[in-house]
């Protein structure tokens, strides 16, 4: 049995554990912020259509990446090459984070997660290279955008798991009557993730402006899903100096709008439950409020993306805020799942029996 503040209960080695864990936590936060910057740059690469401005990979115009002359960082090269440089640093940071975790954190699930983060950043690099060498196929580029979100989620989860809050907030709370916040938070995170995947596919299939007005669709409330409506829509797009679209692009765009509705519903539902029934737990209250604030910002940015005809900075901020919304929901999910026991407190869950699982560690800590 460990005392409340003892580092052992978090799987840390006793020696220098507390200070070291704080460093690890800060390092994980720094890496997360770095990945946010990377995602913004990735958004700028797509928004400025700079993805192929550097035709070779992993070199840059024949130069070793880090020796590419600064004077040649012009036009699209600025965004694409910056993205590659920042991504390389993100890779190094992630490898360092994995090593750090293995050195100071004995929790098996955290170690595995850090290892998967390293695998993910490697795969990201390969996908980034493939999409350049294969001339930006929609599915490779979309996978690159999607894996970026998963990679960020892994690093953010490590940051959460190594925080002091992870220790302070472990109280054996029984889930309160009503709709399960554990399930709602998880469902919200999954919904947001699906919406980001749809967003990535829409973006990389050039369907972002398939419908150039909001909230109506070519002035109508009925989606243009018939051949005749599509033809008419394309005439309007051409008149607006926009590219005509296929039915597939139209569907992808409309699915993203529908997804926004689903995400809005889920976030409002989850936040309401959290604020009503777990108001007395500051960390959950803050989390729910943050989620609501991000929803407002994200919806505004989404609308502005359409109304400004995909102004690059606004579009990229929309991508980054989407990532922020996902990780905020993920943090809420993680916190709720380990702060709030499902059903009766202490009821054994199937995976509790697994050695090294977070639930087991928490129960040990609570003993």
């Amino acid at each position, binding site marked *: 049995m460990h005392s409340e503040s003892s580092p052992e209960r978090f799987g840390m080695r006793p020696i220098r554990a507390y200070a070291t864990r704080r460093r690890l936590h800060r390092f994980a936060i720094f890496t997360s912020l770095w990945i946010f910057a990377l995602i913004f740059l990735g958004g700028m690469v797509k928004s400025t259509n700079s993805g192929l401005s*550097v035709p*070779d990979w992993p070199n840059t115009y024949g130069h070793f990446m880090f020796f590419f002359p600064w004077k040649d960082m012009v036009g699209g090269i600025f965004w694409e090459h910056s993205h590659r440089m920042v991504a390389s640093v993100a890779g190094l940071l992630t490898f360092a984070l994995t090593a750090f975790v293995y050195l100071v954190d004995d929790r098996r699930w955290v170690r595995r997660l850090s290892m998967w983060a390293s695998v993910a950043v490697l795969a990201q690099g390969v996908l980034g290279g493939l999409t350049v060498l294969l*001339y930006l196929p929609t599915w490779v580029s979309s996978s690159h955008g999607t894996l970026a979100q998963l990679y960020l989620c892994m690093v953010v989860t490590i940051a959460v798991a190594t925080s002091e809050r992870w220790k302070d907030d472990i109280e054996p709370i029984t889930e309160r009557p009503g709709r399960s916040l554990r399930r709602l938070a998880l469902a919200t995170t999954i919904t947001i993730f699906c919406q980001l995947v749809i967003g990535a596919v829409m973006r990389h299939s050039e369907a972002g402006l398939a419908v150039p007005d909001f909230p109506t669709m070519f002035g109508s409330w009925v989606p243009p899903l018939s051949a005749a409506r599509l033809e008419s829509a394309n005439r309007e797009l*051409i008149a607006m100096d926009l590219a005509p679209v296929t039915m597939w692009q139209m569907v992808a765009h409309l699915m993203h709008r529908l997804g926004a509705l689903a995400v809005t519903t889920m976030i409002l539902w989850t936040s309401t439950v959290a604020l009503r029934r777990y108001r007395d737990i500051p960390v959950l209250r803050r989390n729910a409020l943050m989620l609501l604030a991000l929803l407002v910002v994200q919806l505004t940015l989404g609308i502005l993306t359409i109304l400004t005809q995909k102004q690059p900075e606004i579009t990229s901020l929309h991508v980054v805020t989407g990532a922020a919304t996902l990780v905020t929901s993920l943090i809420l999910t993680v916190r709720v799942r380990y702060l709030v026991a499902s059903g009766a407190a202490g009821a054994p869950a199937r995976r509790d029996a697994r050695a090294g699982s977070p639930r087991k560690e928490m129960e040990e800590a609570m003993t």
Partner: protein
Amino acid sequence: MNSSRSLRLGAWLLPALLLAFALASCGGDSGDDADAKKPLATIDPATAATITGTVTFQGTPPAPKSVRMEADPHCNATPENETPEVTQEVVVNNGRLANVFVYLSDGVKGRYAPTADSVVLDQRGCRYHPHVLGVMVGQRMVVRNSDATLHNIHAAAKINKEFNIAQTQQGQLTDQVFTHTEVMIPVACDVHGWMRSFIGVLSHPFFAVTATDGSFVLKGVPPGTYTLTAWHEKYGTLQQKIEVKERESTAVDFAFKAP
């Protein structure tokens, strides 16, 4: 499924997915060889005719858009770019539409040997010259960088082999040859987002690009019945059935309308 099995599965699944993506995307040069199987034809000067015409634009053309070249100081400083920049998408002069690719899309019998002369796609002042060009299957196209800055040349071909090449030096030349008929291939420089060009590749020499006065001439056309097509990057295609008689000049006009 226990966690170690999940991990093992994941460890195999990720590279497998990557490989699948790579294989699925490596379509390569998928054009058919229909052109290659056609008999070789030659132009008979004794019977060859001419098709002439003008492409007009009806309605109000869109206002020219300015191009912001600040992203590359070289482009911004180029003397020919000191005038207000406009895009080359829709160029209308007195109701005449330039940069329209006019070609015989149907009725040509046989294939023609590529012209020995090469065509040049020049990058000058961070623009493509010409904006629209035609080239024969097998004909040499020289891509030239006349700028003191670097460019990438990305030809998003669907039937021919797609390419994305770099030109880092002023005066650099790169040869390209297209192997299949394809109308049109968009060409872009992703370093300078405003640079766009279009290439029409045909197995015969009966094509032209309208000049600034909207006029075009197709020379050496054998007598026969053809479909004449006019293509514009923004306004799509128009077609006419025409009959060309020996040694005569046939006049054909097209009129694109503002949407």
